[in-house]
């Protein structure tokens, strides 16, 4: 009855406009919060290098091209670097000194083969679970960590062959194999991808496998050490960078492209986030203003209700529940629209080879709840103030 009295005659155009504005704002808010998080997380889980770890190599100059300076590291240079106070550990990156081919070996994908370059690094530098990262002679699979660029190349091939592209998860389920040879004898070894990296451009295999293959197909000669892994001390990374600059060393920085991409997309969503905050705030204000207008139109009703014995709290709650329901409906519709938008945005990202975590982030749900509670608080305060002002006038 109270609802019928207070909300029967109202100009709903303004309510509709405010609700529509809030709907747009909420949709953009959820979307931007979700993608800000997902884009910032992109690649983090699959990174396998530990914190403060760099792959270091000597700068290739014109003189090194003419063999006047060396680009490989001596044992002496490694031990000297290891003694530096800002260095935690130094280990060589062992490269293959024999021939290696990589190919698909799964009935679900067409055959793809390529010459590849494999490397092994000490497992202390890798952020992978040790139960996955081990190999000994006679084991069925050699685990490997794949450069993400290689997956992009594989997907390009898939696309050209008219086959659906593979995500990180799917790639880790497919079967592959490596052919290793010294030119005379050869061996096929089944492999499985256990992770991806943006930082290393070769396929990483366990040290045991590299030692086994080197012994069998390179007469035990590991070849020259052209790259090393250096773990710097926390907070002293600047000293390591200066040392590298002074000694003609450089670090591999293949993550620049991903970082730049993340930065652009992140900035875009940050802008949308700010706009959506403004939109939600503005539309929330319009809704609150509409509530004030509605209360003002119901001045006689509110005053009379309280005069005949209606508790002011019940009048306040009638206004509060009405607007909370409107905003709640806006949030639900906004969330549904977000799910639809998300489907298309994820498709666009996947077409571009970017596989974001598809699950809905808790933070975006929390942002919706936070928005709801802020609006509910503002509504309750406005209803309380408005009703009491009307009664006391």
């Amino acid at each position: 009855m109270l609802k019928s009295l207070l909300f029967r005659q109202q100009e709903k155009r303004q309510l509709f406009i405010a609700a529509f504005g809030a709907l747009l704002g909420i949709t953009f808010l959820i979307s931007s919060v979700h993608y800000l998080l997902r884009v910032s997380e992109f690649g983090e889980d699959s990174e396998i290098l530990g914190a403060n770890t760099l792959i270091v190599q000597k700068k290739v100059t014109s003189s090194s091209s003419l063999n006047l300076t060396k680009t490989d590291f001596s044992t002496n240079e490694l031990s000297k670097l290891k003694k530096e106070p800002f260095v935690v550990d130094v280990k060589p990156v062992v490269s293959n000194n024999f021939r290696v081919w990589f190919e698909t070996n799964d009935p679900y994908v067409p055959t793809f083969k390529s010459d590849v370059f494999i490397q092994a690094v000490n497992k202390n530098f890798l952020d992978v679970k040790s139960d996955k990262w081990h190999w000994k002679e006679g084991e069925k699979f050699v685990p490997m960590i794949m450069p993400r660029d290689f997956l992009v190349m594989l997907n390009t091939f898939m696309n050209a062959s008219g086959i659906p592209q593979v995500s990180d998860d799917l790639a880790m389920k497919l079967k592959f194999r490596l052919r290793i040879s010294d030119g005379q004898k050869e061996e096929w070894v089944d492999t499985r991808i256990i992770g991806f990296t943006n930082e290393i451009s070769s396929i990483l295999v366990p040290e045991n496998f590299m030692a086994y293959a080197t012994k069998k197909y390179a007469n035990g000669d590991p070849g020259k050490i052209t790259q090393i892994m250096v773990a710097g001390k926390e907070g002293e990374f600047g000293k390591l960078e200066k040392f590298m600059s002074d000694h003609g060393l450089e670090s591999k920085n293949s993550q620049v492209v991903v970082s730049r991409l993340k930065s652009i997309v992140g900035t875009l969503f940050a802008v949308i986030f700010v706009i959506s905050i403004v939109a939600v705030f503005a539309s929330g204000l319009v809704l609150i203003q509409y509530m004030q207008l509605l209360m003002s139109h119901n001045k006689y009703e509110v005053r009379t209700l309280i005069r005949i014995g209606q508790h002011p709290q019940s009048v306040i709650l009638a206004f509060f529940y009405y607007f909370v329901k409107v905003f709640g409906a806006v949030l639900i519709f906004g969330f549904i629209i977000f799910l639809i938008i998300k489907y298309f945005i994820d498709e666009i990202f996947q077409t571009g080879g970017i596989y974001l975590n598809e699950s809905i982030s808790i933070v975006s749900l929390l942002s919706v709840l936070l928005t709801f509670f802020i609006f509910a608080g503002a509504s309750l305060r406005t209803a309380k103030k408005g009703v009491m002002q009307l009664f006391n006038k």
Partner: protein
Amino acid sequence: MNIEFIKVMPEPLAGINHTKDSLWGNKFVFDSKQRTLLNASSGKGKTTFTHCLMGLRNDFSGQILLNGEDTKSIKLESWVEIRQRKIAVVFQDLQLFPQLTVEENLKLKAELTGVFESESAFKKLEFLGLADKWSQKCGLLSMGQQQRVAIIRALLQPFECIVLDEPFSHLDKENANKCMQLILERCEEQKAGFLLTTLDVNKDMVFDKEIKL
């Protein structure tokens, strides 16, 4: 319920000369169980009196005590309880909701206390000859009809005293008598009294005490 007026003088009436027996500026005690008639000509503050008594205005000097408690210090929550259970009121300007039907107006009030059902409200309406107006919007009724609806609405609650501000001003004698009969029956049921303001005393009116403004 004991109602005391101690030297009450509303600000808008402070400049007017009041008679010695006027309630304004003097001390009066009402027993809520009594049937009191407040007889005064226009402009003497009858409506001001009802509004002050109901806690709807505080622009007066002196004190109004309800059971010994100063009305100015009574909190809104307590006023809600007083308006729902102790003092019923028929406002001079009726204060009905014109956009609601007669049924809705009565139901809205009945729902506050849960004492009366629609059926009981309808019987009262029937008694006052308004049964056919049950589903009609109050705004479409004549003043006399609205006045009767307002009286029924005030009766749809428990009370110790009912304040009636010129309740029969738009009614003919027959309807006024019927309304008075209904009011007296309700007062009898609850052992309650009334405080009725009027411009002139009707010889058919039943009352215990008469006061002037």
